[in-house]
């Protein structure tokens, strides 16, 4: 009997030490993978898996470490996200990726900071690739949170710079989702437009429940009767495609200034009607330069059958910077990787990007682009097999996007 115990404990010992030597880095993708925003979550997951595979193929990580991506469904709901984070912890994730919905991100950033305080031996880093509420890098900032997309204020500053020079637009209508992010978009649009274009009138400012409105036609009727020339919206996922769908069906003739229209479904919903009228402010689109076109083609080749095209520049930047930080710190320990990430710079396909040390916000060039017809002649590539794609109309250098911050890490 004693002998058996000995054998068992030896086997256990070996297993522990064996797993120590070829460590697997676990990224928990805690995202809405069911419900109205499931398709957006799946798109981001495919982006993440593509980049992680590239890192593993390069074999660049120290000690032959490899990264695995484990998806957890947070149902785009803060409470569910905390449960999903629990189950992610149970399988031992070191990094949490999330981006869809700032209310989920706020819940997660709190939970992760609390977890790190209580479990200093197994800390977790939060990689936010798309949750844009400015509070996350200001009054609500946490040392364990890093944001790789530009926040609402940075994007709205860039977008309003462009609207300011478009003197043909005299009235805009704001329609946004009724939660921290949508309210931030509406607030930023109001204050920045007032300053940059005092003559422009904001003829409407609507907040609607997130993910619940299935029929936007009452809102469109309201926009129509307000006589607005342009709609400014931060909506994403089905809230954006359904809005555009209604607008198109009712033949509303306005310019769209959006944060996310390049996301899956947006362009194919508006179709030809959106040419020269639909704009977006993003950190990436396919037609910025040769490198971005290559990256777009890479995504398409990897996923020939999926509906969407490459969209998230922030996911690639996050994975590439994590890779660099792991190489620099010589391991996957989230604390040392976190300190390597601070003030780190990296040259990506759109130019130099750098992580601010004072609030963990990535500075990167931003692009205002508009929907145009694409063809082999003009050298542009399209999205969603629609024959339409984006073309840059204004570029904002990374350093210009820097905003003052109130962040003070604990």
């Amino acid at each position: 009997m004693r002998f058996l115990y000995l054998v068992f404990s030896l086997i256990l010992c070996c297993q522990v030490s064996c797993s120590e030597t070829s460590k697997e880095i676990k990224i928990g993708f805690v995202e809405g993978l069911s419900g109205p925003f499931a398709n957006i979550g799946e798109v981001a997951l495919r982006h993440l898996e593509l980049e992680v595979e590239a890192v593993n193929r390069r074999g660049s990580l120290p000690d032959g470490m490899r990264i695995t991506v484990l998806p957890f469904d947070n149902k785009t709901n803060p409470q569910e996200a905390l449960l999903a984070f629990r189950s992610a912890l149970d399988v031992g994730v070191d990094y949490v990726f999330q981006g869809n919905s700032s209310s989920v991100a706020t819940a997660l950033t709190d939970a992760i900071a609390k977890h790190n305080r209580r479990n200093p031996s197994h800390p977790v880093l939060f990689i936010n690739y798309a949750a844009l509420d400015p509070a996350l890098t200001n009054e609500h900032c946490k040392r364990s949170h890093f944001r790789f997309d530009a926040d609402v204020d940075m994007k709205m500053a860039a977008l309003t710079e462009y609207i300011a020079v478009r003197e043909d637009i005299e009235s805009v209508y704001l329609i946004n989702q009724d939660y921290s992010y949508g309210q931030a978009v509406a607030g930023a649009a109001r204050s920045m437009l007032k300053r940059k274009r005092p003559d422009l009138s904001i003829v409407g400012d609507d907040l609607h429940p997130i993910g619940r409105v299935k029929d936007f036609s009452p809102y469109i009727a309201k926009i129509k009767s307000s006589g607005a020339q342009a709609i400014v919206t931060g909506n994403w996922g089905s809230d954006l495609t359904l809005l555009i769908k209604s607008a198109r069906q009712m033949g509303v003739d306005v310019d769209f200034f959006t944060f996310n229209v390049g996301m899956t479904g947006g362009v194919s919903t508006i179709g030809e009607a959106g040419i020269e009228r639909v704009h977006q402010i993003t950190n990436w689109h396919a037609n910025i330069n040769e490198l971005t076109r290559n990256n777009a083609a890479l995504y398409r080749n990897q996923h020939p059958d999926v509906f969407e095209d490459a969209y998230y520049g922030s996911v690639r930047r996050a994975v590439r910077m994590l890779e660099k930080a792991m190489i620099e710190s010589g391991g996957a320990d989230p604390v040392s990787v976190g300190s390597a990430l601070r003030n780190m710079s990296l040259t990506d396909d759109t130019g130099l990007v750098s992580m601010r040390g004072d609030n963990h916000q990535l500075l990167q060039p931003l692009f205002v682009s508009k929907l145009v017809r694409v063809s082999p002649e003009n050298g542009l590539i399209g999205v969603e097999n629609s024959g339409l794609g984006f073309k840059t109309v204004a570029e904002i250098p990374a350093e210009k996007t820097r905003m003052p911050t109130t962040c003070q890490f604990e």
Partner: protein
Amino acid sequence: MEFFLITLLNSLSYGLLLFMLSSGLTLIFSMMGVLNFAHASFYMLGAYFAYQTGLVFGFWPALFLAPILVGIVGAITERYGLRKVHKFGHVAELLFTFGLAYVIEEIVHLIWGRAPVDYRIPESLNFTLFTLFNTQYPAYRAFMMLVSVGMLAALFLVLTKTRIGMIVQASLTHPDMVQALGHNVPRVFMLVFAGGCALAGLAGVLGGNLFITEPGMAFAVGSIVFVVVVLGGMGSLVGAFIASLLIGAIQTFSVALDLSFLDLVAVFGVNIDPGSTWYGGLSITISQMAPVLPYLLMVLMLIVRPRGLMGTRES
């Protein structure tokens, strides 16, 4: 004026869709006393079946096939599910349909995945029917209204003018007598349940592509359907019709009202400082409250008139 007319049309089309959904529920309830919690799931099944059959046969055959398929699923549910638990009373039936809603949702997850499916409005209906002032009115919405009204008329005729309708109405009030006269009442129940589900399925076929076809769609409409039935009066088709149109109107028109309590108190010369603690709560506009209003109305109705607008029974 333009806004009013367009919104009126929108509210009509939404209200009629709601009616298509709730008529089946109220029919089943009045007939069998079963509050079918899975009713909205049959609406979802209708949309998914239409998507799937539409891929093979196109939209028009799917418009007929999908509700029939949903009806068959409903008939099977009644024959092998509800009828078995019937002897354990209403609570068992209620729990059965409640569980069924979850089972259907999970099955939809398994077959079609968690993301929305690309179920589109057919090209033959994807055009502008007419232009009112300068707002275009999509043909598909008009088509939806046409189908709903046609369905309402057909339902009314079947229930009041045909032999089947007479047996159904008789079984509603005097099941034992109908049974004694030699009619197969359990089969009548099965037919009614299947018919109610098929109506929900038809609503799904029409609503699925106008809005969005995803596994959450049953949950999204589930609660509003109950509001319609409670408001209209349990088991009353006419009540459900009025309540559907009413809720359609409330939801679409309230979006337009940017009034808040701040404006109300401002009428009396009270101005509240934006810094005050009350400001946040009072500045909520009616348009922001739009999604809550039907539920508020239901609560009010339950307080003032528990049997609903046209309901006949008190409980």
